[in-house]
């Protein structure tokens, strides 16, 4: 604990400006920071370029008509650049349908996950009863299982559960969006419950005690007091879950048999067969699949990273 601590502590916090002022104070630790990092920059630039190559190559291929690549070769700049591959994938490749399917699966799943997990988190963190830790362990462990472990019984359960043909054309839960939504929800509840319960535990007990004195029941404490206070955590978890469930490949692959019901992430698997060796179209399809996740990330970056780190800061 040096005397310099008060001035240095904010500098080491995170803001670049703060650090630079720290360097000016002439501390031995900070003079090193003031030096330009040519070596580090060189290393990072090389790595960043390598990191971008696959994506840039995909965009480049997607923007070129197949006729031009056939004529000039894949490794050329000849010909024109346009969005024809995107429109073709969207209209003829069925991507409009796949995108709709993704929304039909992702939106209900995320809403259900947040609703059930917040209730469960409230019950285990704000009410003291016998089995709350046991249940929380069960929920957390469930999220960590590899999905393949429970695939067979789930598949058979859904297959053997009869539904009227008016509801499901397979006569069972198989090949319905409900099957995917149900399992995605069940699988993600564990993680969100764990994170939200940590968040709720950190809220002062006086908050709900005051309400209790005023005669508020459990539901009111949950819905009107705790849930609004959890808004930052709910936003973070919501963003994270949208990405997680949108990116889920396995459950739709297992449960949905008609190809036109698949969400984008799972349908992308069929690209090679669907577009044969038209790599320009495959690239466009891959970009279309990437866009929703990238847009969400760019818009809600802060929430997304907050969600990831909120989930990992315990342990």
């Amino acid at each position, binding site marked *: 604990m040096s005397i310099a601590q008060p001035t240095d502590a904010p500098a080491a916090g995170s803001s670049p400006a703060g650090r630079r002022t720290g360097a000016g104070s002439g501390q031995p630790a900070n003079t090193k920071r003031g030096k330009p990092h040519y070596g*580090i920059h060189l290393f*990072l630039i090389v790595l960043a370029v390598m990191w971008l190559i696959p994506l840039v190559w995909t965009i480049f291929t997607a923007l070129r008509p197949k006729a031009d690549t056939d004529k000039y070769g894949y490794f050329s700049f000849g010909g024109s650049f346009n969005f024809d591959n995107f429109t073709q994938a969207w209209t003829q490749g069925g991507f409009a349908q796949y995108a709709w399917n993704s929304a039909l699966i992702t939106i209900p799943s995320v809403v259900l996950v947040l609703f059930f997990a917040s209730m469960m988190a409230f019950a285990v963190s704000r009410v003291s009863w016998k089995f709350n830790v046991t249940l929380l362990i069960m929920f*957390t462990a469930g999220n960590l299982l590899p999905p393949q*472990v429970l*695939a067979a019984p789930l598949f058979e359960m859904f297959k053997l559960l009869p539904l009227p043909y008016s509801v499901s054309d397979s006569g069972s839960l198989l090949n319905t969006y409900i099957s995917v939504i149900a399992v995605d929800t069940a699988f993600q509840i564990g993680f969100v419950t764990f994170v939200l319960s940590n968040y709720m535990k950190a809220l002062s007990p006086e908050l709900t005690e005051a309400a209790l004195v005023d005669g508020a029941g459990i539901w009111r404490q949950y819905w009107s007091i705790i849930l609004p206070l959890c808004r930052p955590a709910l936003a973070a978890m919501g963003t994270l879950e949208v990405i997680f469930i949108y990116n889920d490949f396995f459950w739709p692959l297992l449960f949905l048999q008609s190809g036109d019901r698949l969400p984008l992430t799972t349908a992308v698997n069929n690209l090679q067969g669907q577009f044969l060796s038209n790599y320009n179209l495959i690239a466009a399809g891959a970009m279309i699949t990437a866009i929703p996740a990238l847009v969400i990330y760019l818009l809600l970056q802060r929430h997304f990273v907050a969600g990831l780190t909120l989930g990992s800061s315990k342990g």
Partner: protein
Amino acid sequence: MSTLSKTSPGGVRRTAAPRTGRVRRLSRRDKWVLSFMVGVPTLIQLVLVWIPTLLSAALSFTRWNGLSLDDIKPAGISNYEFIAENYPPFWPAVQHNVLWLVFLAVIATPLGLLLAILLDQNIRGTKIYQSIFFTPVMLSLALIGVIWQLFYNRDSGLLNFLLGTAGTPQAVDWFGDSGVNIWAALIAATWRHAGYVMILYLAGLKGVDPTLREAAQIDGANAVQTFFRVIFPAMRPVNVIIIVITVIESLRAFDIVYVINRGTNGLELISALVIQNLVGEGQVIGVGSALAVILLVISLVPITFYLSRAFGKDKEA
């Protein structure tokens, strides 16, 4: 973050104790509400996660073609014997899973840590670098398989062009050649994993008390010593989560190999073998379930490790 670590289960009980003393009686309505709030999620979790897991274990000791429930016949441990002795892809799959784990642990995770350390120094453009390295984390592993297919392709892929082998007999079919495709898939998986590790460690590094760093430097420790002796141990909660994520991700690895070639021809993984035995020609539910149980038993190691850290008594304080 420090507030969260304070509120471990132990801490809750401590704060909860005086509350119960204050005569806190739940009304009948509250009890109903509470049983709904706990009951519904628990029921979902039991029916769709834990009961199927137990059923997997039960089915692994049976022979079943998946048609009618009456056809289920007891089989003892014969499925396990079959897997160990007469199922050619099993041992390669185990090797590949181990290789996957070692590669992520030795290459991808340290690379992510290195990126975090470099980007934590507030150099110019750190946000841009972070975004670049983090972008693949947004993408599903299935999509990553497709994107890298374009990069690795034998005739039209960028890599063979950059190596100058495109169009020649020396051109390597990176995803098709059973000798190299696991490495190609691992590099594609690293593309995502390193960014994930980076962002978690960046958050971890911000949480480290800055006075620790100063104290070490005043004591004459150089940057490397400071990191390994002081900063790294201080990030224990993040280290735990990184270990768990690395192990679990390597056990769960499935999407990318399935997109490449359904987990065949050099890309066998236990998770892919489970699915091959469940769907497709001649369902062998018993064998698929036995493979699932093997995967489950291995997974319980990192899961137990994590749970004991997350829910065990706080030893740090």
